[in-house]
């Protein structure tokens, strides 16, 4: 089996939920978040964003 076909190890959501200490609104969560700006080609669907190996 190719390495690329290796199944992704999923997050244990129940374990992760146990770390939740607060519920906040979308507006509050995004208030200090700078949106990533994408080229028009990405927004129009002509090309894709790919995050690949870190250098």
């Amino acid at each position, binding site marked *: 089996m190719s390495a690329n076909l290796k199944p992704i190890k999923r997050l244990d959501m129940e374990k992760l939920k146990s770390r939740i200490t607060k519920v906040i609104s979308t507006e509050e969560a995004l208030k200090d978040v700078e949106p990533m700006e994408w080229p028009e080609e990405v927004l129009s669907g*002509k090309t894709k964003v*790919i*995050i690949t190996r870190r250098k």
Partner: protein
Amino acid sequence: MAGRSVIRQNKSDYYKEEVKYAMCKIGDIILIERYKDRGRTLRRHSFVVVDDKDGEIHGLPYDMVCNVFSSFKNEEQRKRKLNYPGNFPIANEDTHTQPDNGKSGYIKTDQLYFFNKNKIEYTVIGNIQPDILELVLEFIDTSDFEEEAIIDNL
């Protein structure tokens, strides 16, 4: 209209746009076009899908969990943001677009956005390669910082 995603495909000289019910998977990068019936318009933010299984939180069903993918306003903000333990850095060299957007950023893993795909509109704009996705998921799984939940889109 809520509950639909826009999926666009490019096949060399053939451009097809189709609107269909939400289909996305872990590692996809999505752009939320519209949140659940919200009076005020929020800016369009990019998110990374970190879980795509159905679940329930506070008695509300969800079918997707995401982290927001953000950029930096300036160098000072970059230094400040990367001091937060939950922010996973993504260098510009790690992001491939044509043309290059020239932006570095981070995935804010200490906030979990629980979504019901039928109540938002989003576009799949790309994905994280499996090896990087594995690093992000391992980072979330093995860290012990507190998480905040965003559930008002359910």
